[in-house]
């Protein structure tokens, strides 16, 4: 009997579904239209198209943009914030930086709640968690009445030093639930983000309260729908950290799902790194309006402990995705007689001129179409046909004033966009102390493979990889994730004050709690792992590096202090280009990550090619300002071992790969396209 693992990635326009057949050891990808307002219908219809009997599904994982969209579109619930009396303005002061230095008309990023929705509650803890002023319980009951009368949908509670002593926050929730019912959403700051820095922790709790009810309702509906269609396997959710959790746990910690959608690609990249020579990857994901860059370093996705979305900070583990304002929709325009491309985007509406939705400005997609790099009929799996005349007309509005013919302006726009993207990648890698030449570029998303090879050339990167299902790579990546939970414990000590026994005891306590929590995720005991790390910095610095520990017992090692300092110095050197071994350090936060390893979905090797030939045709495509005879090949016609040279274009349902002259392509035994620069490597 067949059984399947399934991942579902719901985007704004399309829902990507990837299935893994446990017996055949095969992946399949499919796409269905997203059905706004009734998202589960799109998912079910996609599943129906690939699996006969949905009860054969034994594992599901889902990346959701529900929380993210509620945030971006500002349609979360009304939140009342309870904060420490006297300093309750911390949320609106927001630490006061001016993020645009040359803008005298600067406004802070719009907060999610207004100042009138903040209530100061008396009760104060000292820095060590001891109580200075008891909690004003009557004030909390008054606030509960305001919630009821004012129609608020959730409450966020953020008191000073709650990470040292959560009693006041917990008691506040008890009272609120007595008054408002046990179902009412109350986000406590020490649960949303158990770290110091009151503004960032408060902001985390506010985001969790604001988006939480939306995410919860959605997950409950999707679970119900799947279950009525016979899917019995529990639903899992991708978290911002790149780990997965059951939907039941995700409902308790909805903040963790905020970047659930985009991180799948980075996890996929980490999996891909296992089968490539290089463990160092730069992932580029290009869609219509954005261009996302992620890094995999030594086989591990680059994860940070803080995220900022539209100026709102959140303290949580999150896979680093650097978004660059460039994409197929970037608009070309003229300023003072000079050509400019972006940063403004035509977005999805009106979109590029060739979409035929009344867009008149030329975009990068229009330029690609005019050059023949995108085919008018085969865009987005045939869901959309493109108007090449509209593209040419729009391009001429910029080309003619500049004295550039149709080919020169179209390729010129692509060249400018490519160098801008390459430069942005270079600056990101340099600020991380990474040399891009040592990395492999992985291209996914609908438009990523269209530009990736040009970017690799610009950056001096010898190899570009286009994985199977590039358009559904994020969904594929979700099937490669492990269960993951992150725990933190603020633990501020100067190096000379560290009490090793206490530190070890504290870590063991967190470990026991963390491992036990994996039972809720259905992870058997022998599949549970804990990893500890500690945030370390030089004294007087504000920011830190997260330094791994070998175990909870490591602090008991008599040499621990020296080893920690050395490990920190090594990491610091890697990150910042120098270190200061011997300078006093301090530790800030203990971190414990527990993972549950899931049954892996290894794919059977791709069928080797039976000969060197494969079906293809030839058509003219512009490279270096000249139409060149270019090989057009369907990806489904390629088998592992096939090789060919650019210029070539590889077509598939979800993406188009453009291979310019001077590059060779090899299909590896996973079915990935390995594209190399002939000048750098020679053809292999």
């Amino acid at each position: 009997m067949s059984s399947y693992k399934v991942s579902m990635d719901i985007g704004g326009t399309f829902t990507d579904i990837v299935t893994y057949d446990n017996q055949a050891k095969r992946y399949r990808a499919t796409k269905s239209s997203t059905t706004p307002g009734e998202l589960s219908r799109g998912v079910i219809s996609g599943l129906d198209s690939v699996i006969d009997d949905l009860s054969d599904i034994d594992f599901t994982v889902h990346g959701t943009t529900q929380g993210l969209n509620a945030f971006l579109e500002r349609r979360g619930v009304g939140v009342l914030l309870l904060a420490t009396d006297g300093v309750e303005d911390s949320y609106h002061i927001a630490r006061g930086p001016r993020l645009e230095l040359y803008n005298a008309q600067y406004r802070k990023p719009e907060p999610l709640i207004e100042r009138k929705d903040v209530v100061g509650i008396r009760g104060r803890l000292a820095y060590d968690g001891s109580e200075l002023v008891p909690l004003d319980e009557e004030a909390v009951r008054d606030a509960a009445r305001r919630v009821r009368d004012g129609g608020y949908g959730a409450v966020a509670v953020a008191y000073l030093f709650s990470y040292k002593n959560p009693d006041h926050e917990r008691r506040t929730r008890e009272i609120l639930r007595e008054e408002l019912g046990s179902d009412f959403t109350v986000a406590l700051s020490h649960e949303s983000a158990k770290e110091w820095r009151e503004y960032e922790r408060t902001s985390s709790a506010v985001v969790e309260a604001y988006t939480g009810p939306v995410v919860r309702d959605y997950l409950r509906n999707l679970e119900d729908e799947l279950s009525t269609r016979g899917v019995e396997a529990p639903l899992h959710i991708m978290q911002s950290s790149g780990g997965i959790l059951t939907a039941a746990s995700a409902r308790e910690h909805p903040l963790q799902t905020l970047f659930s959608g985009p991180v799948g690609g980075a996890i996929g990249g980490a999996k891909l790194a296992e089968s490539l020579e290089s463990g160092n990857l730069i992932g580029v994901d290009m869609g219509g309006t954005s261009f996302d860059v992620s890094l995999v370093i030594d086989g591990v996705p680059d994860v940070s402990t803080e995220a900022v979305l539209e100026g709102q900070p959140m303290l949580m583990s999150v896979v680093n995705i650097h978004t660059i304002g460039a994409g197929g929709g970037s608009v070309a325009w003229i300023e003072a007689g000079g050509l400019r491309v972006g940063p403004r985007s035509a977005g999805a509406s009106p979109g590029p001129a060739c979409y035929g939705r009344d867009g008149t400005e030329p975009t990068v997609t229009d330029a690609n179409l005019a050059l023949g790099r995108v085919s008018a009929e085969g865009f987005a799996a045939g869901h959309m046909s493109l108007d090449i005349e509209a593209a040419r007309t729009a391009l001429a509005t910029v080309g003619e004033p500049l004295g550039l013919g149709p080919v020169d302006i179209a390729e010129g726009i692509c060249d400018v966009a490519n160098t801008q993207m390459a430069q942005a990648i270079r600056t990101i890698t340099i600020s991380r102390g990474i040399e891009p030449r040592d990395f492999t570029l992985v291209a996914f998303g609908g438009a990523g493979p269209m530009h990736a090879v040009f970017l690799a050339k610009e950056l001096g990167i010898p190899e570009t990889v286009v994985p199977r299902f590039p358009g559904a790579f994020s969904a594929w990546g979700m099937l490669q994730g492990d269960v993951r939970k992150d725990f933190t414990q603020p633990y501020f000590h100067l190096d000379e004050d560290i009490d090793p026994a206490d530190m070890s005891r504290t870590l063991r306590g967190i470990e026991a709690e963390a491992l036990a929590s994996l039972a809720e995720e259905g992870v058997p005991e022998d599949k549970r792992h804990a990893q500890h790390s500690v945030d370390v910095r030089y004294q007087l610095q504000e920011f830190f590096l997260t330094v791994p520990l070998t175990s909870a017992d490591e602090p008991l090692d008599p040499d621990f202090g020296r080893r920690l300092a050395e490990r920190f110095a090594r990491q610091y050197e890697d990150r910042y280009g120098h270190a200061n071994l011997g300078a006093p350090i301090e530790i800030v936060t203990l971190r414990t990550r527990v993972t549950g390893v899931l049954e892996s979905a290894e794919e059977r090797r791709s069928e080797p090619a039976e000969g060197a030939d494969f079906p293809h045709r030839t058509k003219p495509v512009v490279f270096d300002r000249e139409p060149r005879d270019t090989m057009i090949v369907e990806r489904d016609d390629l088998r592992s071992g096939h090789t060919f040279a650019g210029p070539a274009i590889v077509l598939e349902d979800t993406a188009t790969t453009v291979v310019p002259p001077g590059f060779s392509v090899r299909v590896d035994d996973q079915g990935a396209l390995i594209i190399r620069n002939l000048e750098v490597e020679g053809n292999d």
Partner: protein
Amino acid sequence: MTLLDHAEPPVHRADPVTVEIIRNALTSAANDMNATLIRSAYSPILYEGGDCVVALLDTDHQVLGQSAGLPLFLGNLETCSKAVEEKYGSEVWQPDDVWILNDSYLGGTHLNDVTIFAPVFVDGTHVGFSATRAHWMDMGSKDVGGSMDSVDIFQEGLRMGPVKLHEAGRETFIVDIISTNVRFPYQTIGDMNAMIAALRMGTIRMQELVARYGIATIEAARDEIFRQTEALERKTVADIPDGVYEAEGVLDNDGIDLDTPIPITLKVTVSGDTIDFDVTGSADQTRGPVNCGVAQAVSALRVGYKLLISPETNSNGGSFRPLSTQVREGSVLGAVAPAACQWYFSHLGLLIDLVSKALAPALPDRVVAASHGDSMIINTAGTDPRTGRDWVTMEATLGGWGGWDGSDGESALINSVNGSIKDLPIEMVETKYPFRITAYRIEKDTGAPGRWRGGNGATREYEFLADCAVGLWFERSRTKPWGLFGGETGRGPEVIINPGRDDEERLLKANARPMKAGDVIRLTASGGGGYGNVADRDPQAVASDVENGYVSVDHARRHYGYEG
């Protein structure tokens, strides 16, 4: 002749695509230099505060590419390589040399701002310069980090150059002189090496560009890039009605003689597509440390200009061509030796605001009413009884910004010359220092009334849990944040020691004033100025302000006729 054709057309026109690729590459090269500097710096003021700037220059010292950087460092890196050439001639440039300079009267700022720069060579040909300026935490002044009461440059630390830091790729003795004259040599030399790493990055990027496009194409592209920038700015300037526009204000005092205000005056003359800023009427240089060199006054004027004329474009050698400046030697804006320059920025914050005030009649939709305008500094030092360790802190206080056509000013925001620095979290402050922050709030009614009201200043109140010494620099109580077009004036700064107690005391400046455990200090920064007449304010906005506590009911009734 159209405006776009005004600048001299280049002899050889590079094609528009190449020009745009080179334009992006030059900015990107500067961004890479900046990323290298911030990544390698040892001091938080650089890697967190971003108190630095980098640029690539051509052989005529024109900016090819520059990072956004600290606004006050805008457009005065080129004075440094120029100063060398004036002194030693252009044959002084040799491959693998690195130069350093921090002389206040050449660089314009205090001695802590150090410029390091190097000529760039490709195959033996001098093609330009790579340059960077950064704030060093200590230069060996009489007080740690710098003084609030120095009276000459000799109290302010090591003054250099221009001198060679590297010669033919090897460090000179200057490095040793620096190490023996500053208080934190380890970090300082670390920061110095970070700056040199940034220069190397800039040199590599420039060499790559020359190798790829050739110097002739890059020069043609440069001319076209400058022409585009100049044309945009000239067009904006030409749209300003011709005329003379004036504004003035005063600094409270120079920090030494507390009773004498320091006038700063600005006369703007617009004629066609040129604009002249004349600050010669400003006060003579002072005994206290509120002076700066000419180069820094020009920088501040350029910031004021850029905020109104070209806020969105990266500056380059085509920028500021419509602008001329007149600064008087021997004035607070054109200080000569041995004037003290440590606190060089208070009058520059004022000057930047005055540009907006002067040009308000001409650019009503671009200008903003005045902000709190200065850093509003508190520093503390003492011994923590919990640990027996010494501590030192310095914090700026957030203030209100002015309103503009279409929006109220922002509340509780850092002042302009501090870039993007953040406040210190209360949880961090109380954990590390023996204080308790007993209040931190947006102070209602401090922002000025207007159709678009000023933002409110912040109040931050400290209770000291240990004896300590406090320094204060709160400014702009005489020239309070002004309004525009009928908007009113914001409330000035206020510092109260032990409010409500018998020993309550008000003051704005202090040096190492002793405080006892249990003493309280309440700091309130000014609110911003208003824009437009109060009578025109939307009643719903007034109601919303009352509801959100930005203004009190009483204030709303008195100023806006609120009837709620």
